[in-house]
């Protein structure tokens, strides 16, 4: 989709949304009844990111998207567009394709051989003369799911009456289009099954308050104390300074050895001897120097974007850890039946349009099995520290001793996320009452 140009990410602070500090009941994370309401009134009404459009090169290429109890086929159409259909044969309800990526000239059900075209239309049913009621191809074609793309991401929406994707995304395209994500490439992808609610996972990444305790070693090069939080309608942002030590750290307001080693030397700036401000400028300038060799377009990014993590959460479940040359996208998906489990997709993108990066096969891990990402990918050690917490947070929330979440100022994005969720649930309950 074409984006307006020229553009730059707004740096102004969003107005205070005036959210109350009322406790958040734990049942929102642990109750099956609440999860059922979420499904009925939120998941089936919102736009949700399903994957990357770059996985669909030619007509018939497809991938499945598993969301709660649903499986959806995302398929490259013969006219070049991207379409979405429920992954369900309309004969007896069999799933047409196993989870994953592939290519199909037609989708043949392995139960009774009913065949569907790439656009979902029914091609043929076996022995149609054996159906006295007829086999109406119009009624028995695959059910359509709304589908659109932004910045190389494919989104779906199960609500046929939902607002258009770009309207739903609100400020997000204005903020993130300057990164030109449509040209970025996947260099690592995995899914982790975690024993926690999907919101437990979203929340864990929606604040920098946990840095000092969970990722103590990172305070030498990242700054929880000067993190800025913004709430925009449904979606939220936090600007999390990097190449800058926390005010809690003994190296605050200096260029720490960690900043030199992990940022400056890594990008070719050796023996740096300057102020903290000069270190950030040098790191930004050096990225601009190396960017052309990778085809990376940094022209629309400011110096802060070349140093800091511009962290966005697109409601309900998409987290961007945005940097100039790499970005980690997290998708937090609900389990089909258990509110105490979820699937965490980690998509690592690199800003290297010119690089020959083979599409990596997605990997699968489980916190229950004790899997660790430390040796699997860049940043895996950091992520491990969060993954260790998540099942324990969920277990603790289920305790008789724990009633509700007590959230502070630095956790405003979590309160905003709950407020948006509440609005969906209230609208759904009202619609149910009217029906």
């Amino acid at each position, binding site marked *: 989709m074409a984006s307006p140009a020229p553009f730059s990410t707004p740096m102004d602070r969003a107005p205070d949304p005036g959210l109350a500090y009322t406790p958040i009941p734990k049942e929102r994370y642990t109750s099956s009844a609440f999860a059922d309401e979420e499904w009925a009134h939120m998941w089936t009404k919102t736009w949700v990111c399903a994957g990357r459009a770059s996985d669909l090169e030619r007509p018939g290429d497809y991938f499945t998207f598993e969301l709660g109890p649903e499986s959806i086929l995302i398929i490259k159409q013969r006219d070049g567009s991207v379409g979405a259909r429920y992954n369900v044969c309309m004969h007896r309800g069999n799933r047409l*394709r*196993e989870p994953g990526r592939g290519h199909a000239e037609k989708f043949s059900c392995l139960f009774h051989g009913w065949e569907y075209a790439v656009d979902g239309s029914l091609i043929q049913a076996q022995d149609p003369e054996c159906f006295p009621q007829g086999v109406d191809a119009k009624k028995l074609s695959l059910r359509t799911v709304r589908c659109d793309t932004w910045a190389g991401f494919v989104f779906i929406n199960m609500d046929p009456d939902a607002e258009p994707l770009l309207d739903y995304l609100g400020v997000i395209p204005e903020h993130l289009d300057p990164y030109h994500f449509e040209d970025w490439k996947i260099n690592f992808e995995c899914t982790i099954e975690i024993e926690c609610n999907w919101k437990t996972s979203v929340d864990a990444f929606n604040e920098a308050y946990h840095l000092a305790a969970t990722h103590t070693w990172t305070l030498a090069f990242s700054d929880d104390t000067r993190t800025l939080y913004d709430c925009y309608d449904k979606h939220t942002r936090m600007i999390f300074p990097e190449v800058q030590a926390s005010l809690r750290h003994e190296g605050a307001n200096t260029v720490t050895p960690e900043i030199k080693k992990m940022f400056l030397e890594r990008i070719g700036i050796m023996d740096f001897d300057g102020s903290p401000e000069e270190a950030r400028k040098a790191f930004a300038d050096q990225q601009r120097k190396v960017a052309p060799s990778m085809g990376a377009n940094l022209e629309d990014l400011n110096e802060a974007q070349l140093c800091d993590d511009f962290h966005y959460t697109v409601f309900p479940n998409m987290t961007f850890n945005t940097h100039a040359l790499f970005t980690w996208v997290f998708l937090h998906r609900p389990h089909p039946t258990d509110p105490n489990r979820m699937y965490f997709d980690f998509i690592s993108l690199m800003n290297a349009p010119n690089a020959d990066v083979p599409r990596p096969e997605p990997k699968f891990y489980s916190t229950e099995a004790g899997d660790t990402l430390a040796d699997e990918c860049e940043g895996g050690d950091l992520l491990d520290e969060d993954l260790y917490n998540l099942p324990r947070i969920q277990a603790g929330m289920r305790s008789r001793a724990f009633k509700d979440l007590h959230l502070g100022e630095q956790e405003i994005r979590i309160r905003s996320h709950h407020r948006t969720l509440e609005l969906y649930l209230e609208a759904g309950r009202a619609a149910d009452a009217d029906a």
Partner: protein
Amino acid sequence: MPENGGGSGADDAGRRWVEISIDLPAEGENARFVVEEIPLLLCSAEGKPWIVRDECPHVRTSMQGGLMKGTVIECPLHGGKMDVRDGRPVAMPIRRAGQCFPVRAQGDGWQVGLPA
């Protein structure tokens, strides 16, 4: 070139080497042929020829024309995936290993090793 595919441990005493009558397909492509009533699929992957029985281990349909990514072939009917080097199932609904046959260069052409 030494033989490849068809598992390991077999020796020539247990095989008959039979000429292949078709050309090696382009890299990432495959072609069906029949020898002694056995349907076979000649696959070209990673710069080498590989031969599997042209019978999907799922419901025994032909896999000819199936998309290949590296050494993995995708069955065009139901999307199951199998590694043509050893027949190992890679993605459901293929759950059993496919049958593989060794292949070797002989003169200007290729030979497939069939059971004696």
